[in-house]
């Protein structure tokens, strides 16, 4: 909800925004008419993907950046279909 206010304020000042939201909060994006939202099927607290999953982070980032050029209507929400995936690494 907090970033919904931020998105609307920045956008109203003339700077386009894309907000990456976890699916659990996608309904907030809809309720608040966030200008452009990318919904990801990741758990809360891991919006870009698992730690060190750089490929997933980049995939999410590129999908978000694409929305700057593809979105023509306020309130657009694009959902990525890929589920969260853990990455094995040594602590």
């Amino acid at each position, binding site marked *: *909800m907090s970033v919904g206010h931020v998105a609307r304020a920045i956008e109203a000042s003339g700077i386009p925004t894309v907000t990456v939201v976890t699916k659990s909060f996608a309904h907030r994006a809809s309720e608040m008419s966030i200008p452009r939202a990318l919904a990801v099927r990741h758990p809360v607290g891991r919006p870009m993907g698992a730690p060190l999953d750089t490929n997933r982070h980049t995939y999410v980032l590129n999908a978000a950046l694409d929305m700057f050029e593809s979105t023509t209507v306020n309130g657009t929400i694009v959902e990525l279909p890929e589920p969260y995936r853990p990455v094995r690494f040594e602590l």
Partner: protein
Amino acid sequence: MTPWAGYASSGTLGVMDEPDVPSSFEAFRESFAYGERNDLNFKFMKSMTDAEAASFLQKLLHQIGDTYDTGDAVPLIETVYQAQVDSYSPAPDSPPPMFSYADGPLAPVETSLRNTRAGLLTASGHFVSGDDPNPFGEIAMTQERAIERSEDFLSSTPLLSEIPVATPATELRVRHAGYDIRSSLKDPNVTFPIDRMKEARDSGTIGGLASTFFSFPGITAQGRLRNVLPQWVERIHEEDVDVMLLVPV
């Protein structure tokens, strides 16, 4: 009480007082949301019914039995993920949300991405080592202490941290009373994709980056946040960015 090897609210293992036996299943599931068994990955159980929580835990235990043989934790993660999504989704008879808008602004994108200067603002609670915002005047607040003060965060004005883009990931710190920060401690790009943004710049996907990124803990008073937004927006404009990527947690 007997010393007990339990998990602190931050998710770290330590010796702590054994939690009391809950008086009911309802008390048990609610204790995961800022209670004796606080676990921010599972605080959603508070909003479940007893029947939903019982079914969820039974399914999870059954799948753990499968994991003994397969070693594949993905089904467990999917079960928890789906329960989380279902719990956060508003029920059909829910009251209307506090903030709801039929429409909103849509600023035009003036240039191609390759010529765009991009900024980043997250609600992850990151800051630079040595530049701790010290919420409520507390010096070096720990994650555990932040969780103890979650109600104070929810009634206070958020503090916006400035993070120079040149900051190495090793100099980033994170603290947030609303989500499990363990993933962000392992890799800040999980919630604050500073390295991925630099890579997008270096590959030419985007034309350039702001000199400073921003972060704040999204667990905050919504009205107070709205009051400070004009100053935040003014500061963002000083970065001369064409677009902003926003990442709540």
